[in-house]
């Protein structure tokens, strides 16, 4: 299955396999994260993870249903890694994930490159959208609700780590 973008000049809309998308640069993505992290009393990281999980879950489910109804979980995770790369987020290995969770790693991250270009190193991880991506993809593949998986970035390139590493577990309330 190939992911391709298409521009509709009549309506000025870009779609990725039929789903409307927008292009955002690192000034927007990293600037937004920096602002909301400084705002007191809101859980900025959780909001990023939760909304990303919902969106990736819904859209990946539709890609699945439309084009790959019979593929295995491993095939679906490989497809998800391709989607992640096509969207410009970097290179991610999802092969160690299963229905109960597991680990994932990324040796090339859009969010790290963007943050380093704009602000330099930071002491804590920056790939919160990636956490949401992993949670949403797993929920889509294993037919669970978008909040069924808890994803934590345990190491991040932005802090000087060797790769971005993610630990995933399925929440008990997840169906």
């Amino acid at each position: 299955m190939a992911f391709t973008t298409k521009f509709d000049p009549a309506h000025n809309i870009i779609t990725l396999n039929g789903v409307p998308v927008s292009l955002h640069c690192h000034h927007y993505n990293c600037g937004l994260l920096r602002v909301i992290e400084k705002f007191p009393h809101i859980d900025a990281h959780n909001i990023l993870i939760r909304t990303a999980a919902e969106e990736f879950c819904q859209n990946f489910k539709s890609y699945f249903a439309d084009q790959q109804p019979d593929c295995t979980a491993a095939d679906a995770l490989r497809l998800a890694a391709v989607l992640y790369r096509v969207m410009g987020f970097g290179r991610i290995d999802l092969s160690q994930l299963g229905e109960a969770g597991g680990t994932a790693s990324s040796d090339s991250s859009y969010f790290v490159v963007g943050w380093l270009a704009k602000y330099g190193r930071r002491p804590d991880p920056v790939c919160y959208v990636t956490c949401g991506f992993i949670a949403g993809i797993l929920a889509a593949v294993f037919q669970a609700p978008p909040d069924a998986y808890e994803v934590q970035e345990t190491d991040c390139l932005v802090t000087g780590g060797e790769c971005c590493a993610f630990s995933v577990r399925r929440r008990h309330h997840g169906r």
Partner: protein
Amino acid sequence: MELGDSAFSEQSVFFRLSGIVSIQFFRLTFLLLVTLLVDIRAAIKTFQL
């Protein structure tokens, strides 16, 4: 030309202004901003910020 003078140097205006672009689902952008506004509004009300 040395790297320090080139468009790709961290010192250049081009480097600082140019964007590293990714594709995002349109609905995610909308959902994120709405969720943030709702949470910020709630925090302002709760904590009298």
